[in-house]
């Protein structure tokens, strides 16, 4: 019989983020299908009461909390200690957490302290009687593996964008605070480098992924590059649609090849084998050939369309739903006008 512990971290404003509520949904769904499972929740943050109240209706047998200024920052030493303490307090056999940068950082280390195992980037949880099966994509999302594990506790981080957001009743939760013995801490989070709202191009929650391929900076029909136009069209489109921006190759790669580069693209925008595999309901690719190593990063983009001058490009061969054989400069100009 499993004891499921749900762990989340609380945002600065005391709320739980979308990803945290998705993981809660996943945990509760598992609880309802895994025979005889118990359910406990644990929250980490400066102050966890408001967040606990917001999920008071989740049916947790216990609501654990760790709070204080040490937990206002996402830091390995304090977070790993908190997760370990929760799992011990709850005598958890399965730990389910949102796959945020904060919790992904600590779950594996905590699993070792607990004598258990951890898997990040889980995309599905299912139960067959008392057996828990998970899905994880291996080889940069190129193959889907379904497996079970014997060792417990089993710590699992659920990738965002897969499960629905839990929406249950709020209430007044009784939070049982857990004591955590912190080791000597040598790290302080001193701040964030965040692109300004104008510069922000990565929006994980956007409905649309817009991919700018290397073609945007190559010579166009008139024999010239039009990088300034490319920047204007791409940013104009992002502004109008609030889409998230991806690239087929990284800025550094293109720069190394002596090409003009788009100033706002960084490694972080890169989609594919050596980049990200984001989740968006729709994706629009422009000036990109649709090579396999890039397209593997589209694994979780449901509806896919592409604009490319080459009717025989990779997108044409079953990688996109629609391929528009056209000049992306012209099409995007028109799209922005219409938007």
């Amino acid at each position: 019989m499993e004891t499921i512990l749900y762990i989340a971290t609380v945002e600065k404003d005391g709320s739980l983020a979308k990803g945290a509520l998705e993981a809660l949904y996943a945990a509760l769904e598992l609880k309802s299908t895994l025979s005889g499972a118990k359910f406990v929740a644990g929250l980490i943050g400066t102050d966890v009461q408001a967040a606990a109240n917001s999920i008071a209706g989740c049916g947790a047998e216990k609501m654990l909390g760790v709070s204080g200024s040490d937990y206002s920052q996402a830091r390995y030493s304090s977070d790993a200690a908190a997760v370990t303490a929760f799992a011990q307090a709850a005598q958890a056999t399965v730990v389910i957490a949102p796959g945020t940068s904060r919790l992904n950082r600590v779950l594996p280390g905590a699993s070792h302290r607990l004598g258990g195992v951890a898997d990040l980037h889980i995309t599905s949880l299912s139960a067959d009687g008392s057996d828990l099966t998970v899905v994880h994509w291996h080889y940069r999302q190129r193959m889907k593996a379904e497996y079970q594990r014997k060792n417990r506790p089993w710590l699992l981080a659920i990738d965002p964008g897969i499960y629905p957001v839990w929406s249950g009743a709020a209430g007044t939760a009784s939070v049982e605070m857990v004591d955590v013995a912190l080791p000597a801490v040598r790290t302080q989070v001193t701040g964030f480098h965040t692109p300004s709202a104008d510069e922000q191009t990565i929006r994980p929650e956007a409905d649309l992924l817009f991919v700018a391929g290397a073609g945007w900076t190559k010579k166009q029909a008139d024999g010239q590059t039009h990088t300034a136009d490319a920047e204007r069209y791409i940013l104009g489109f992002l502004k109008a649609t609030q889409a998230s921006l991806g690239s087929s190759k990284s800025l550094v790669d293109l720069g190394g090849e002596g090409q003009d580069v788009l100033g706002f693209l960084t490694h972080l925008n890169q989609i594919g084998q050596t980049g990200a595999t984001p989740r968006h309901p729709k994706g629009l690719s422009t000036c990109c050939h649709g090579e396999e190593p890039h397209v593997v990063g589209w694994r979780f983009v449901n509806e896919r369309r592409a604009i490319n001058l080459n009717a025989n490009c990779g997108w044409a061969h079953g990688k996109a739903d629609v391929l528009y054989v056209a000049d992306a400069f012209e099409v995007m100009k028109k799209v922005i006008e219409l938007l």
Partner: protein
Amino acid sequence: MTTTDQQPEAARQEMQVDIICTGFGPATGGFLTTLSRAMTKEDGTPAFESKVMPGMLPQVICYERADDIGFGVSGVVTKAKSIRESFPDFDPAAIPMTHEVTEEKVVYLLDPVGASRRSWLVKVADNAIKLFKWILPYRHQAMELPWMPPFLQKHKGIITSIGQFNQWVGNQLMMSGAVQIWPGTPVAKPLIEDNKVTGVQLADQGTDKQGNPEAGYTPGMDIKAALTVVGDGPVGVVGRDLDLHFGLPEGNHIRDWAVGMKMVVDLPAGCELKPGTVIHTLGYPEPEIFGFMYVYPDGVASLGIFVPSWFDNPMRSTYRYMQHWIQHPYLWRHLEGGTLRSWGAKSLQESGRRGEPFLVGDGYARIGEGSGTTNVLTNSGVDEAWESGVQLADAVIELLEKDKPFTKENLDETYVKRRRASWLDSESRIAQHARDGFQKGFITGMFTTALVGMTKGKLFIPFKAKRPHDRIPTPEEYYKGRISAEEIDQIRKECRSKGLTLHDRLMEKAGWPEIKNDGQLLMSHQDILLMGGKVQATGNYADHVTFVDPRSCAQCQTLICTEICSGQAIAPNPEGLGVVFDREKCVYCGACIWSCSEANKDNPEYSNVSFRAGAGGLHSAEN
């Protein structure tokens, strides 16, 4: 220490070693295998001492351009006589995609689509076969020849993937610790001082496409050595530079070439072909194009075609022709439902012994295909290349033992003497006129090959070989009577403005059916680069293909370099005249060098294409 002109502050460093090898293929494999075994005595102590690092073993370094030592591009059938001598316990099963030859067939393919350009003699032969098909071994629009000439037979030989073979040899060499092989390291040129080869210069890194220094500029090192072993193949930059500098011996020339393009295929379930089967085809898609298929263990086959330099067609797209060839009913019945695993292409020096350069000089020796080892009668090159490497290693060991320098004289006395006294030389002498007749077409070629083969070289007809660029007709000439000059001009204008080649349009106009891509074996050229060749290139190097005189390209009407380019790396310039090159697609087959229809203004034996070494290319080790 010297510095570059462009950026004086970035110093070009120098490193001293004892022996440099350029290119890691079967010849260098044979050389290093033999040499490395002799470097330590039975008791484990060094047999020789380095001249540049006293107290250590001689420093032997091999530079390979490709990103890994297994990225060779050949499936081969070979008698493996010399290879077996090097490895007496050789077990084909130890190397993946290797098997003993169990069955050999020569098959004449008729034209099932009616688009092949066949001379009246070939048509007569075709009609005769069709007329007597009830009594001939005719099926699936092909005739299996009842008999195979002994000179073509590779009975008791092996079929193997050179990629896998190279990896197998390379791993053993590296494990020996006696030699070092550095892949991903293109050599820029040989260093020649007073007609003495003193080493090589590695390619500059951190440059733009024109070779101008950029951030991270690292001038290629000068690597100095007492001996430079040149085994970089027929399109290798060191061998070609030496040919240019020293010329070729009187009467020798390299005018016969072919590009071999192949795919490795997972055969469909239930395929009847047995491992070890070797099929040679002729007759289709054009009579000038020969094909091969080798069946490996575990339901895998390697198959492809050769497009020779004497195939006088300016639209000789190897890839398009290969797509038609695999769909010939005789082959397609085995292949349909199969899946592509790998793909690649490579130029073959088909002049053989008549393309032999000066084998040695002060500080250098030539081995392998670039040294004219290929036997053009038996169509065999790998074992010959390996043997030349073994012979050079034996010579080098002798000179090291006697502590003699690597002068032309000493290398002549040891290496050349061995080579001249061996089967390698006597067999290549027999073969040297075997291909001459192909200068006059397919039928004459078949006749003279048979004549040379059956008389062991005693009888031959010495047709003079034309330079490839002297024989390329214009599309108008080639398609005369099939497509009008006006139509060709119209198609040319349309295609060129889009940066497209002409062959698809012209071939279809001439009756070749459209290719219906299935995404498994039939796919776009772009997809086969990625799905088969896994072609990729890092930046930071200068373009290795350049065009010597852009004016020649600007007035060129055939742009045959774009039509034959195995990787679609050379394309018509959509923004004007001439062509553009995209390094990221180049597979280093070198077909552009010898297909170019424009002569080099300074040396008519060369063309207007300059082909240097660069990084990247194929990333498949299965070819």
